[in-house]
C-alpha cells in the first residue's frame, strides 16, 4: 500500500515512457504535450525527451512503419519508395492539413512544396536501386517544444505557423549536396521589420537541440519564402 501511495501518475510529457512507441494512442498522447508544455507548466515537461521522440519518429517511419500515409490533426506524413535512377527533380506538396502528395511537372507552382533535386538520388544510385523517402509535416503548437532559444529571446520570435517539415531519406546521412533541396513556405504579408530565416532543428546544438541556419539560405518573398539547404 505504501508503495502504491508513493507511485506518481505517469506523465507522458516527461517523455520517459513509450519513447519508441508510435501507435496512434502514443502519438496522440505525446502530441498533447505541444499545447501542455508552456512556460507555466515547464516542470511537467522534458523538452529533450519529447523532441527526441519526434526526431526518432522519422526513422521509424522510413524503416519500420508499414503505412504509406498518416493523417492526424497534428501530423501528416507520406512514405514512398523512390527509384534512385529518377530522371527529373521530384516535387511534393506540403499543403497544411493534407497528406503530402507527389506533384506532376504542371503543378510545380503549388504554394507550399518541396523540391528534391535528381542529383540527390543520383549520388545513391551506385549503392542502392531504391530508397525510402519520408515527408512529415508537424504542427508543434504554441508551447515550448521545438522552440529552442526562441523562448529566451523574448522579442516575439516564432516558428511560422508552428509548422515544421521533416525530410528523411532511408537512414542515410545526406550532407554537402551540390544542388540544394528546396522547401517553399507560403505565408501572409510580413511587416518590413520581420526577419525571416530558414532553419533546421540541430539536435546536437545546446542542451536539448536548437534551431540552426547552417547550410541553409533564405530567399524572402512577399507571400512565399524559399528555403534552400545543402543537407537533410
Amino acid at each position: 500500500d505504501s508503495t502504491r501511495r508513493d507511485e506518481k501518475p505517469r506523465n507522458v510529457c516527461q517523455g520517459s515512457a513509450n519513447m519508441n512507441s508510435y501507435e496512434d494512442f502514443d502519438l496522440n498522447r505525446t502530441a498533447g504535450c505541444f499545447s501542455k508544455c508552456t512556460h507555466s507548466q515547464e516542470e511537467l515537461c522534458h523538452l529533450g525527451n519529447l523532441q527526441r521522440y519526434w526526431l526518432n519518429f522519422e526513422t521509424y517511419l522510413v524503416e519500420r512503419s508499414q503505412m504509406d500515409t498518416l493523417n492526424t490533426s497534428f501530423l501528416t506524413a507520406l512514405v514512398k519508395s523512390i527509384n534512385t535512377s529518377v530522371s527529373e527533380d521530384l516535387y511534393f506538396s506540403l499543403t497544411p492539413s493534407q497528406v503530402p502528395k507527389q506533384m506532376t511537372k504542371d503543378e510545380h507552382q503549388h504554394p507550399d512544396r518541396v523540391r528534391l533535386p535528381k542529383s540527390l538520388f543520383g549520388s545513391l544510385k551506385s549503392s542502392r536501386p531504391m530508397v525510402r523517402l519520408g515527408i512529415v509535416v508537424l504542427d508543434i503548437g504554441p508551447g515550448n517544444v521545438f522552440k529552442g532559444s526562441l523562448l529566451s529571446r523574448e522579442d516575439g520570435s516564432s516558428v511560422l505557423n508552428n509548422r515544421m517539415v521533416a525530410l528523411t531519406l532511408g537512414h542515410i546521412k545526406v550532407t554537402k549536396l551540390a544542388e540544394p533541396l528546396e522547401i517553399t513556405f507560403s505565408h501572409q504579408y510580413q511587416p518590413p521589420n520581420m526577419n525571416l530565416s530558414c532553419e533546421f532543428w540541430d539536435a546536437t546544438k545546446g542542451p536539448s537541440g536548437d534551431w540552426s541556419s547552417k547550410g541553409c539560405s533564405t530567399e524572402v518573398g512577399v507571400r512565399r519564402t524559399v528555403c534552400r539547404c545543402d543537407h537533410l
Partner: protein
Amino acid sequence: TFFALLLRPTLDEATVKALIHISQAGCGTSMIFLAFTIVLYTVLRFSRQRFKSEDAPKIHVSLSISLFLLNLAFFINVGQRLKGSDAACWARGAIFHYFLLCAFTWMSLEAFHLYLLVIKVFNTYFSHYFLKLSLVGWVLPALIVIGTGIANSYGPYSIRDEKNVTTLELCWFREKIALYVTVHGYCLIVFLFSAAVLSLVSWKIFTLSSATAGKEKGQHWKGVLTLLGLSCLVGLPWGLALLTSLGPFTAYVFALFTSLQGVFIFCWFIILYCPSQSTVTSSSGTARVDHAHTVSQE
C-alpha cells in the same frame, strides 16, 4: 531533419537609439508644458470663479499631473537603469507602473466625462462627482500595483535588438504575464473605451454641425481639429502601440505622439480656457457642450 521558417521581429540599434532620443526629447518637452498647464490652472482657479466649480478643467489637470509624474518616473527609470539594490529596482518598477496606470485611468475618465457631456447630456449630476473620479483615478491603480507587487512581478527588464544584444535595461516587469494583464490588457481596455466614446462624439459633432444652420466654410475642419484634440486627451495615440509591429515607421509615430501628449494637452487647455468665452462658444463644439453641462449640473 526538421526544417521550418523562423520569424523574428527586429528593431536595429540605430532605430532603438533614435526612438530613445525621441522619447526623451518628447517627454522632456511634455513635462515643461504639463507644468505650464498645472501652473496656469492654479492661477486661473484663484482668479476665476468658474474654475472652482467646473469639473472638466479639474480632470484635465489631474491627467496633466499623472502624465507629468509618469514622465518623471520614466526619466528616473531610464536614467538609473538597473542601479541600486533589488528593493530599489522593485520600487522603481512599481512607481513607474503606478503612474502609467494613473495616466491611463485619467484618460479613460476624460473619455467618460466626454460621454456624459456629449452623449448622455441629461441627468448627469452625481454628488461628489470629482471626488469619485479622483478615487478611481488614483486609488484603482494603487490597488493593481499592490496586487502586482505582492505577486513579486517587478524587477529587471531588458530590451534586445536584432543581434540579441541588450539595448536598454530598466526596472519594470520580470513576469511577462503580469505585464500583459496589467499593462497591455489595461491599456487595451482604455483604448477600446476611448475609441468607442470618440466614435460616438465624432458622429455627434458631424451630424450636429450638418443639422444646424451654420454650414459655414471651415466648420468641417473645426470638427476635425476638435476630434484631434479630444483624441490626444482620451489617449488614442497610445492605441498606436497595437500597430508598432507593422514596422519602424509606426514605432516612430507612436513614440512621437505619446511623448508629446503633454504638449497637445497644454494647447487644448489654452484654446479652451484662455480666450474670451464668446470666442470659444462660437468656435468650438466641445466648449458649447461644456457650457451646457455646467447648466445641467446647476
